[in-house]
Every structure is written in structure tokens, then in C-alpha cells.
């Protein structure tokens, strides 16, 4: 990052306190995901039945669960898994979707129509049900959650990249690049793709939140990550049994973690567009 980009980012964040808060939040989640194992006060998987179902206190700031495990420690450890699933799933769908969508949008014609119809058909499915079916069929493993989440995100990226490239395909600088000796192939990869990145960044950020929810949702219904692995979705699912007896902290804290993660990524989306778009710099 050059100093100009940095200065520009600071300027954007100053004018948009909400984006600054969201960026801080996302940064916090990432730090927690990386350094989680070193900051947790307790082992997240070792049970201690004598301390089961304790409400939040100084020793256990988010209470303990039915097996006496510290909820806060489990939340912290879960951040890494949830973020890793979301980032890799969104990364895969972004890479494939942006490339396929760009070429379709640039070439038009039969290929474009065929891919367009395929995407329409995919979007006609209830996407979460599609993900459920895929995980159920492929097997209950983390890499399958990633693949399923990536596939249900794919249509959005294809459509988005297609539309963004389509409006730019006849613009002067694209023709100029061809007059400068670029092939169609390199015009798409080296000229159009970098130019749609700012717009895509917004989509990525929004999608990360959605992917976290999706992974948690799969785990919640028992497809995906298996206990005792700490994961926000499972924690909510397990805690739900105790909510009727007033043990709210088992559900509330993982729910809050999910909500904050999704919110931060969504808010960051808009700010990111402003930072990445060179035209916003003066």
C-alpha cells in the first residue's frame, strides 16, 4: 500500500465514522481468529462438569455451558474456523465467478446466454436448501461446507462481473487497449477485471457476512462442523435447549458474535468501494 492509498483510506474513514467502526470490528475479528489460542483463558474443549451452566461472572465472563466449558474461550476459538470457512468459500466463488462473468460479459453471444440461463436456474433454487443437499450428499466435512457455500455464492459473482464488464466493453480505453496490441483475452484479464474490483469488493464484503451465517446455519441444523469443535452455529444450536430454563448466555453470546461479524462485514462493504476506487481520490 503506498502512502497515498493510506492517506486516502484515512480520509475516507474520517468522513465515514461508521466505516471506521466496521473496519475496526473486522480487524478485531481477524486478530482474534489469528491469535485466539494464545488469548483464551480456558481450554475450549475440555469439560469440567462441576462448573456446568454457570452464569456470566468474573471467572467466566460469558458463563459456562452444559459440560462446564468456558463459553468465551469457545467463542474466541470458533472465530478462526468460521472466518476461514467464509473467506475460502467467498474466495473460490469470487475467483471463478469474476473470471467466468467477465468473459461472458465481454464476449456476449451464445456462451453468455448459456451461462446466463444456467445462473438463472441456480438462483431459482432456495440456495440454503441447495447447500444443505450438497453437504448431505458429499459428506459432513468442513471442505464440503466450503464447496457448498462457494457454489451457492457463485451466481451472484457471475452476474455481477458480467454486468460490470458489459457496461465497459465498448468504452474508449478498452478499444484503446486493443489498438495498443492487446488480445481480447488480456483486455479482459488485465484491463477489465482490475477495473471492476472496486465494485466487486463491496460484493465480497457483503458476501463474507452472508457466508458466515450460511456456515453457522449448516452447523446449526447438524450438517457441517461436528461437536465438540467450537463453532458459533453449533453453540447456538446446543444452547437453544437451555434457553427455556433461563440459561440465556449459551445462545446470546454466540448469537451476538455472529451478528457483529455479519454487521461489520456489511458496513465495511461500502467504505471499501470508496477506498479502492481511484476516481474518488483527488
Amino acid at each position, binding site marked *: 500500500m503506498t502512502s497515498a492509498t493510506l492517506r486516502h483510506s484515512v480520509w475516507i474513514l474520517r468522513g465515514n465514522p461508521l466505516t471506521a467502526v466496521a473496519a475496526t470490528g473486522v480487524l478485531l475479528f481477524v486478530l482474534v481468529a489469528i491469535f485466539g489460542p494464545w488469548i483464551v483463558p480456558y481450554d475450549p474443549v475440555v469439560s469440567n462438569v462441576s462448573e456446568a451452566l454457570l452464569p456470566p461472572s468474573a471467572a467466566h465472563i460469558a458463563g459456562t455451558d452444559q459440560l462446564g466449558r468456558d463459553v468465551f474461550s469457545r467463542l474466541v476459538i470458533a472465530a478462526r474456523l468460521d472466518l476461514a470457512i467464509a473467506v475460502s468459500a467467498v474466495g473460490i466463488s469470487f475467483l471463478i465467478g469474476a473470471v467466468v462473468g467477465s468473459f461472458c460479459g465481454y464476449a456476449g453471444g451464445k456462451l453468455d446466454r448459456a451461462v446466463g440461463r444456467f445462473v438463472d436456474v441456480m438462483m431459482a433454487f432456495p440456495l440454503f436448501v441447495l447447500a444443505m443437499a450438497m453437504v448431505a450428499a458429499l459428506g459432513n466435512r468442513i471442505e464440503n461446507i466450503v464447496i457448498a457455500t462457494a457454489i451457492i455464492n457463485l451466481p451472484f459473482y457471475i452476474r455481477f462481473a458480467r454486468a460490470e464488464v458489459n457496461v465497459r466493453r465498448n468504452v*474508449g480505453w478498452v478499444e*484503446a487497449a486493443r489498438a*495498443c496490441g492487446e488480445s481480447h483475452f488480456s483486455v479482459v484479464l488485465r484491463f477489465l477485471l482490475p*477495473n471492476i474490483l472496486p465494485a466487486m469488493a463491496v460484493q465480497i464484503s457483503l458476501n463474507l457476512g452472508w457466508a458466515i451465517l450460511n456456515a453457522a446455519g449448516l452447523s446449526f441444523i447438524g450438517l457441517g462442523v461436528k461437536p465438540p469443535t467450537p463453532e458459533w452455529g453449533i453453540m447456538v444450536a446446543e444452547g437453544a435447549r437451555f434457553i427455556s430454563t433461563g440459561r440465556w448466555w449459551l445462545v446470546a453470546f454466540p448469537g451476538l458474535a455472529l451478528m457483529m461479524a455479519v454487521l461489520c462485514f456489511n458496513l465495511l462493504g461500502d467504505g471499501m468501494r470508496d477506498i479502492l476506487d*481511484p476516481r474518488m481520490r*483527488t
Partner: protein
Amino acid sequence: MSQSLLSIEDLHVSFSTRRGMVEAVRGVTLAVEAGEMLGLVGESGSGKSVTGFATTRLLDTAGRVTAGKILFRGQDVTKLRGDDLRQLQGAAMSMIFQNPRAALNPIRAIGLQIADAILTHKRISKDAARAEALDLLRAVQIRDPEQRMNAYPHELSGGMCQRVMIAIAISCNPALLIADEPTTGLDVTTQKVVMDLLADIAAARGMATILITHDLGLAARYCRRIAVMEHGRIVEEASPKTLFGAPRHAYTKRLVAASPTATSRIEDLVTAEEWERHAAVVSNARPPAAHGTPPLLEVRKLAKRFDQGSAAVADFSMTMAGGESVGLVGESGSGKSTTSRMICRLIDPSEGDIVFEGQSIGHVASRDFHRSRFRKDIQMVFQDPNESLNPRFTAFDCIAHPLMRLAGLRAGKELWQRVEECAERVGLPLDLLPRFPHQLSGGQKARVGIARAIACRPRLLVLDEPTAALDVSVQAVVLQLLDRLRRENDIALLFVSHDLNVVRMLCDRTIVLRNGGIVEQGESRALFDNPKTDYTRKLVEAIPHFESGPAMATAL
């Protein structure tokens, strides 16, 4: 002063931007009498549109009137609120915008849009409003008004859309009409029809009009009084005759000189001092091509059909010698852009052949032409400089791009030297090279575009309306630059344009296109002075000149 319909007194308008307050209008004083058409002329950024927007209270939220008064019928417009303001906007004064297609609602039939405008200000039934809308369509001379009532904006041409805008603007019989570049983007012939209509309507209904334009010729043809704006101030106000005959202010002089007319030459466009720097070059005129040398470019029976089967270009043939300049003129839809792109080998012709330096290149598919050895010999300058530079490339990257791709240079000292040399040739200050396109002005972007096109020393330069988006003073400099490049480097220019005055000046020969076919061609001066076909004559007559304009002024 109090008798004037509109009197603006010492108006100041500021915009709050990222770099603090920017003063767009700094002390404009102006009076418009009832029924008069006043021209407000200036280049982009002169504050002419902002003055118009401030008068109708349509300023952007970032803009604020910081001082001065705008008195309309004795009432200060800047202080109006609520119902008084609504009464003013649309009913007492209304505005016509630059891009009519963007100003109309695309999903509502035009008849309804006109009726809507009437209903916001008059308490009449819907049927009565529709009847009035129909009358208005007749008044703006739209053919088959009954059917057109139900047409949507996309079904109408640009000129038609502007007529609909005029119909909406005059629907409540305003006393003042503000037309902000009403014909920019329209063809010359359409421009003439729309402006004639606007002038007739204003005269018939006794409306005062402020014509905001960058085109001096247009203002001279239709206005009796013209105010020239520069940097937010009015520098001169006079009748067209005095303004063009004996301009007093230095800026007006420069502006008048830069506007191409029927008789102006390239060297007339800037003041004598500026020209002297190039004088040495002009003197070594190009020797005539030796007899028997093959033409640089030969186009044989070129045709282009698109998927629907309609022919965009048919049976187009031409030849060009090295260092020659040829103009390709025509209205929008005449196929001039398609032709230029086929010659540039960016799109494939359906029929015919293109021969460059004795070699057929028309049959090399455009998708493979980037590998041809002729790619660097045929280069193009694109229409809108704002859109022809990659937003993620700096000026340096833009100019270096063809050098790296086509001349095989690698990043390093030699590339730097070549880029700087190109920048110097087009007069682009070297300290601008690290900037991104959005940090450059329109004229600077145009120079980057030209520098990029000449970087690999092409033999043929195709120019697609390279100055259409530029101010006249910038256009003058760019035209001189092109002319100089042609003389110094023996580059042949194929100049695609709808501006006949520019073509006449810059091009040895001119080809007139209509509906994809050649109507007339010949030596430029002869062709324009003595057009052989009605179509060319119509084109030539439609150009607003200030020589022909003061006919009105003298009649006063």
C-alpha cells in the same frame, strides 16, 4: 434596474468540497428584459451553468448562494420558500437541460410527462391536461402528435426528445426560460431545427430566454446580447457584432480567435505570439508525394452489416497517401464511427478489403490483428478523452502501454525517455505523468490520448471526434498539435467529425457520409464552398457562424 424581468446583482455561489469552499460564481451582475434572448457564453468551469441553476434554485446541495441577489419580477429568488418557490419553478421560470434523454422519465409516455408538468401547476382535469399536452406537441412541431403522445423517450431521436423537453418547459407559459446547452450532442442539422423552434416559440409567447452555451457561433446566431463568462465573472457583455467585430477583453479575444469559422486557418486559432513558436515548423511544407508511389491506404468496397441485417456501411471506397489528411463527416448514424473502426481493424468488415502499404489487412480477423506488424502503424485517438484512458493507469502508464506492447520496450530508462519525448511532443507537462486520468483536465487527457497514439510512430492516425468534448480554446491547441504532428512526422490523418468548420481547416480532402454511403467527396475547400449535393449544402448551412449571425443584430 427594477423594470427588468430578471436582474442578478453581484451573485456569489460557493461549493463546499473536500478541499474547502470553492467559489464558482464571483460577482455576476446581469439583467434580462422580458422577451429577450440573452446568450451566456463561456468554457467549462466558467460558472455559466451554476448561474443558471442558482437562478432556478436547482443548485446542488453542496452549492450555496453566499452573496448577492437574484430579483425576478422584483422578488428575491434566493429567499423564496415552500409554495412560493414551487410557483416559481416550472411555472414562472423553467429550464431545458443538456441531455434530453436523461432528463425525461424513461418509463413514462411523453404525453403523460407533459400532462404531469401541467397538472403540478394548474388545477384542471386530466383530460384537459392531456388535450393541452397534445397542443404543446403540435407547438413543438412533432409529427403525428396523437400517436407520439404514447411514445416512450427511447422511441424518439435526440432531437425529438429535446422538443419534448421544450414542450414541458413551456407548458405553463413561463416568463423566463433557461436553456443550458440545449443542443450539445445533437447533429448540426438537428441543432438548427431545435434552436429555430426554440427562438420562434420564445418570440411568439414573449418569453425571455437565457441561452447557456459554449458555442459562440450558436449564441451569435440567436442572441442580441451576449455575456461572456470566465472564472465566475462576466468579462464582457455586448451585441454579437461588437463582441466578434471588436472584442475588448483579452479572454473574449482569445475565445473568438479559437472558434473555427468558415474562413479561419489553423494558424489563426491562437494569438500570434503563441503561433510564433511553431512558425519554424510550418515553413517546411510537405513536398508532394513522388509520382507512382502506392497509396498508404486503399479501402475497396467496404461494407458492414450487423446481426439484424441492416447495413451500417455499404460500398465504401477511398484512398489516402502518406501524410495526407482526410475528413470523414456525417451525422450520427451515418456509419462514420463504424468505418473508422474497420479501418483501424478493431471490428471486422462484412465485405470488401483494406490495403495498407500494398498489403491486404482487411482479411486479418480483428481478434488476431494485435499480432500484425501493422498494428503499430495504424493507431486511433478516441472520442471522449474522459473515457479513453484506463482509470487505473497513470498518464505515464497510458503512454508506455503501446511502447511496451508494440515496440517491445521494457520498464527502464529507455521507456522513460520515449514516454517523456511523446509527452513533450504533445505539450504535456512532464510533472503530470504520474497522475491518474481523473486528476487531469479534459485537454490534458486529450493530449495523453494523442501521445499514446503517436508513441509507436504510426503511419496512419484515425481520429474519432477527438475534440468534440473539449472547450474551443483547448480544441484550438489540439488541432494545431495534430496539424504539426502531420507535418513533422508525415502521419496521415483520418479525421472523423461532425464539426465541418474543423474539418475544412484541418483536412486536404473531405468525404461526406450519409446512411452508410458516400454522398460526396472532394477537396475540402471546394466541397464546402460549392457543395454539389443538397445534403452537403444542408450540412454546411446548418453550421452557426458568427459572420452570418449578426444579420439579426444589424436588423436592430
